[in-house]
């Protein structure tokens, strides 16, 4: 457990960075990067998520235990995705039925 006080300055810098990244998110969506579109959009979102997690949610300054718990949750989500993706991508599709 950490008792580090995050400074006012740091909080302001983080929120300004988040606003700027939001502008980037919208601007970037106007340009077509082909198959990279999704990766770029999620990439920017992940940078924003990193800022919220590390500073607003205090993970940077707290006991590493919380970070490990969080990353474990994300890891299992990743597993969910990987196994389902393997399943779907190796199916033999005869007709598209929705």
């Amino acid at each position, binding site marked *: *457990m950490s008792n580090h006080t995050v400074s006012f300055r740091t*909080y302001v810098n983080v*929120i300004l960075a988040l606003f700027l990244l939001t502008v980037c*998110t*919208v601007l970037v969506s106007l340009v077509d990067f082909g198959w990279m579109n999704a990766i770029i959009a999620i990439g920017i979102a992940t940078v924003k998520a990193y800022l*919220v997690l590390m500073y607003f949610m205090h993970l940077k300054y707290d006991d590493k235990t919380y970070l490990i*718990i969080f990353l474990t*949750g994300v890891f299992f989500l990743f597993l969910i995705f990987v196994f389902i993706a393997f399943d779907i991508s190796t199916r033999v599709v005869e007709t598209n039925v929705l």
Partner: protein
Amino acid sequence: MSNNHSHAHHFSSAQQEADASKLGLWLFLCTEIIMFGSVFVAYAIFHGLYPEIFIAGSKYLDWKLGSLNTVILLLSSFTMAMSIYYASANKLRLSVSCLWVTFLCGLGFMFIKYIEYSHKIHEGLLPGKFFSFTGEGVVDNLGLYFSFYYSMTGIHGSHVVIGLGLIFWLIIRAHKGHFGPGRVLALECVGLFWHLVDLVWIYLFPLLYLVE
């Protein structure tokens, strides 16, 4: 920072109570990540299989309203963090003000959601088999996109409403003088939940509104 001066009897110290509380909350946040994440995984699968449906569906969403909602939630996360900052610095009136701004931001978000939903429902842009819009830009099975839209923003919106209730509880407690230096645990815990709600929206916004 999280040391309450008094602690419940089943904890050995205020520090231990704070540690245990935040541990429990982070474990809860993992369940939220898996729950929201699963719907995102489903989104990824169907978007990968039928990209044209998602490109078409995204056009019916107003990116300006979505951007505004993103800014509102980010701001609310900032004011939530500032509320804890001020409480720890014994600036209690500022702390409560920050809680109020957080609450109002959440209300603003839900109001915009209401505007968006009512417009779509009026137009017949409904989920799955209920889809009945016949204007421009319709593709086959567009109802699939709106199934994702309503379920993802709906689950997220319910969490915003729950957060509003929790923040209002904090406001009442703050007015009663429950918070101050070393007494911010409840603020931190609700804060963590609220930041998670913000995190989910950070991903929802580009995936639903900015598909092209």
